[in-house]
């Protein structure tokens, strides 16, 4: 091999490296764009578009929210997103810059975001007052002086997301929403840490209630597919821990 051939080979290798870097950067941009759309749709109550446009079509999909445990299969994931609009209800979400890694074969990616969210239900103050036995009522954690109830909660969370490259585009394969805390806007998360235990279970179950028919295999129930994989929320005895244990990029070290 003469000098020209050696130089050409070096240039080709360098070009290949740069092309891979560009593809990785494209992947990061595409995934950031995907999560940007996620936030936009989520905050607009457009859950069906999240499932249709942003989630995989694979039945390997899974979603875990706080201590809800893992909901597997697409029909269970739809129950999280498919909701009838209720006047005065609004959930919003804002994401930080991600910790993000793309697999060497560019078929998988793993991202971790810190998220700030709000959950709102005007309750007794709104156009769709819940009845005495409506499940919404127990989640109304703020109260006016004259005894009317509503929900205006803030949440600090983390979004741990696995992506799959499917039919030329990145899609969500697994989503695990972890928690730091939630509390009513007019209270703080230390004072509310214990009080929320009373409604945590009802809150988690309400997240997976949906106005849709379940498949026969469900026998009328929408139960998690197994135990929680990890969960940490602020309590007055809790010590912060590294969750999730596997950070983006750690997969390459295993």
């Amino acid at each position, binding site marked *: 091999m003469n000098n020209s051939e050696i130089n050409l080979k070096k240039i080709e290798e360098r070009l290949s490296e740069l092309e891979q870097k560009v593809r990785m950067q494209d992947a990061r941009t595409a995934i950031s764009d995907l999560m940007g759309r996620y936030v936009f749709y989520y905050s607009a109550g457009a859950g069906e578009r999240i499932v249709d446009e942003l989630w995989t079509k694979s039945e390997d999909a899974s979603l875990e929210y706080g201590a809800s445990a893992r909901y597997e299969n697409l029909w269970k994931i739809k129950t999280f997103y498919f909701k009838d609009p209720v006047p005065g209800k609004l959930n919003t979400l804002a994401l930080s810059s991600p910790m993000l890694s793309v697999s060497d074969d560019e078929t998988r990616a793993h991202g971790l975001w810190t998220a700030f969210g709000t959950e709102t239900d005007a309750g007794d103050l709104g156009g769709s007052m819940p009845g005495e036995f409506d499940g919404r009522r127990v989640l109304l954690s703020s109260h006016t002086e004259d005894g009317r109830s509503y929900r205006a909660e803030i949440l600090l969370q983390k979004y741990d997301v696995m992506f799959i490259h499917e039919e030329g585009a990145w899609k969500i394969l697994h989503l695990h929403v972890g928690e730091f805390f939630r509390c009513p806007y007019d209270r703080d998360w230390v004072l509310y840490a214990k009080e929320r235990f009373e409604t945590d279970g009802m809150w988690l179950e309400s997240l997976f209630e949906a106005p849709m028919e379940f498949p026969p295999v469900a026998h009328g129930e929408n139960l998690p597919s197994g135990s*929680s994989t990890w969960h940490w929320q*602020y*309590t007055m005895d809790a010590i912060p821990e590294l969750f999730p244990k596997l950070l983006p990029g750690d997969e390459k070290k295993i």
Partner: protein
Amino acid sequence: MIFKSFYQVYIGTNSVRGSKGIYTVHVDADTLEPEIVSTAQNFNTGSLTLSTDDGRLYAAVEGMTFDGYADGGVRSYRTHENGILEVLNGQRANGQRTCCVAVDDTLKYAYACNFYRGSFSVYDLEADGRLKPARLVIEPPADARWKALHCIGQIDGEYIGVISLAECAFIVYRADTGERVTSYEFPDQPFPRCFEVSGKYIYVMMQSPDDIYVFENCLRENRQIRLVQKISVMGEDYQGMCATSMLRVTDDGHLLLAAHRPTNSLTVFRIGDGGLLEQSCVAKLPGETPRDFNISRDGKIMVAAMQKSNEICILRVDEEKAALIGSGTKIHIPSPASVAISRRISIE
């Protein structure tokens, strides 16, 4: 002079349809008229059990979260004759959806098992009935395809029985060490549901098909249980869907009652020599979906949690005829799921 005579009934509920947790109901011993006298907040009370002195109530928290952890749990309460439940404390169950809780006759130990993860926990009890953190946590086999347990209870004070969905088996452990003593694997992969112990016999019921397996307890003799009978709840001629929920034995060991949800019925069995069951009748219940029921300690009344029709129904038990009698009484309670009944209380 007796002013009032009643049974204090505790009803655990699923946390839906406006439920307020655990309801205390006074049932008039003469008229069977029920009255809700108190409620205590608790999430998804899938199982309730009273201590033998009626002074403490233990409730399984059948949820995915307990005190901020991804866990189920158990709560202990001090009971009062006015119906008020005073919370003593709660402990994690080391597995989610804690579906069954039991307490031993000596009031020294409590047990809880978990539908998810298939684990169970053994708790030592303080003198006042508080639960200490779990002393023993038993996990299912690592290679089990479906890790789930459904029912737990004490046997003879020294042993713990569990219904394992993971192994489709009834398994016996030592209560002090957690050592696995013996097991019975049910043939043809039925869905095992629950069991009761009465004297020397253990009655294990399948949810589907609706069979009851009767075992003789030979644990002290040779660490074994011996199958002596298998009998259908609805009878061999029944062709419909099977989904039993609970079986109970009267304290004197004369009758066994078994609930069947699709037909809203209770089958009454006489318990004969050798613990063998003989079907007496199938009694229709006024309501839909008996999720649980219990019998008063004197064997006089039966209270059923009719989950779908959001009510409890109360009927008299006629031990001589081995039947439920009368049309009974009812009261509305949202999604009732578990029942415990005190002794008859008389106020003079």
